[in-house]
């Protein structure tokens, strides 16, 4: 059995770890509240953006536009949103798994990393990382998303990548986060039509475009991509903090359990040593009085 001193030392070390996890939990709870508010505020924008683009495409008919067809390149660009820091449970590894276990061929994937953890993990697996925007995860701004989408769209237009995907963690609520892989370009016309058809039936007059369809798409699709990237960022940040809060919460309660166990062991050892001392004293006294 471990000595009393060993047990005490171990208990002390677990206690200080518990203090740290507790503090981290509190910090991420506060951050989560903020991130959640942001995510909710911006949700409107994405819903409207999505609906508008879907209804546009549904009504636009069969326009032959570069953004609606895959490029010539086999390469697939994936924008990967993860966090810069660890200790967030499965948050980062779930996103990485989405890519490594997905149907992508490793050679075909070009990664645009947002977040150090995902970047490093994918580099370790041997993926090629083309761009790194890890600085923007902490406090995502719309202008940051514009920068990323501009780069990605340029590569798409130059034929360096043929498809664009976005890997992010969707924020359902505080405890449920879904790693999601979303196809940004070419816009999935089939899915768009499916969603829009219900809407279109009760529809009023047909939509007009000004300027005409082609040029309108030219301008709206980049905004659509930007807004999806920004939405992914905002949701991912909220999920990150939610995941960290959960991870730290369970770490804290695990530490609690271990401390309880060690306290019990310590008390037993203490009692044992007292009993032993008593036995020794009594035995000694008996020896003298005899």
């Amino acid at each position, binding site marked *: 059995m471990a000595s009393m001193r060993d047990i005490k030392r171990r208990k002390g070390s677990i206690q200080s770890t518990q203090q740290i996890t507790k503090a981290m939990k509190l910090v991420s709870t506060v951050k989560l509240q903020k991130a959640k508010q942001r995510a909710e*505020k911006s949700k*409107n924008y994405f819903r*409207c953006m999505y609906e508008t683009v879907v209804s546009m495409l549904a009504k636009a008919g069969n326009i032959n536009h570069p953004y609606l067809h895959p490029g010539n390149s086999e390469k697939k660009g994936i924008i990967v949103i993860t966090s810069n820091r660890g200790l967030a449970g499965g948050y980062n590894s779930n996103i990485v798994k989405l890519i490594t276990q997905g149907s992508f061929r490793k050679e075909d994937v070009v990664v645009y990393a947002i977040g150090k953890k995902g970047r490093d993990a994918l580099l370790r697996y041997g993926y090629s990382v083309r761009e790194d925007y890890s600085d923007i995860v902490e406090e995502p701004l719309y202008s940051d998303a514009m920068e990323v989408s501009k780069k990605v769209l340029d590569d798409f237009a130059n034929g360096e990548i043929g498809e664009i995907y976005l890997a992010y963690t969707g924020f359902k609520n505080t405890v449920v986060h879904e790693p999601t892989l979303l196809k940004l370009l070419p816009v999935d016309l089939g899915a768009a039509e499916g969603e829009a058809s219900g809407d279109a039936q009760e529809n*009023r*007059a047909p*939509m007009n475009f000004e*300027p005409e369809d082609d040029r309108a798409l030219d*301008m*709206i699709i980049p905004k659509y991509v930007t807004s999806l990237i920004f939405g992914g960022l905002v949701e991912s940040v909220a999920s990150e903090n939610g995941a960290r809060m959960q991870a730290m919460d369970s770490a804290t309660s695990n530490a609690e359990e271990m401390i309880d166990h060690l306290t019990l062991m310590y008390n037993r050892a203490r009692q044992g040593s007292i009993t032993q001392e008593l036995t020794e004293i009594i035995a000694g006294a008996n020896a003298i009085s005899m």
Partner: protein
Amino acid sequence: MADERNFRLEVITPERVFYEGDVNMVEFNTTEGEIGIYKGHVPMTVIINPGVLTISEADRARNAALHAGFVEILQDKVTVLAEIVEWPEEIDKARAEAAKARAEERLRTKTPETDIMRAETALQRAIARINVLS
């Protein structure tokens, strides 16, 4: 009581809901020129050029600087999906004027490397900001 001629206007940005309410008329600048919209407009989607957004409520008109985005116009509802939009009190006049001077300078001394599109947009934005304030 609600006015018959009013329609619903929503101005939404990625960061917040900028404006939401029943309005009489709304005016803004598009790629095809400035337009004003009343209730019952033909459904249309237009792209925004930097300019002044004027929202006419029942008893007053409010101005804002609207820089980028697009607008979905339906018969009884107008949704402005704006990337950047500002109320007058959020604009720094000195900065807008400096930006205007800078953009003009760039257009005047243009070299082959100058991104003319960008300079022009910057100029339009600065002008829109200054117009909202005056």
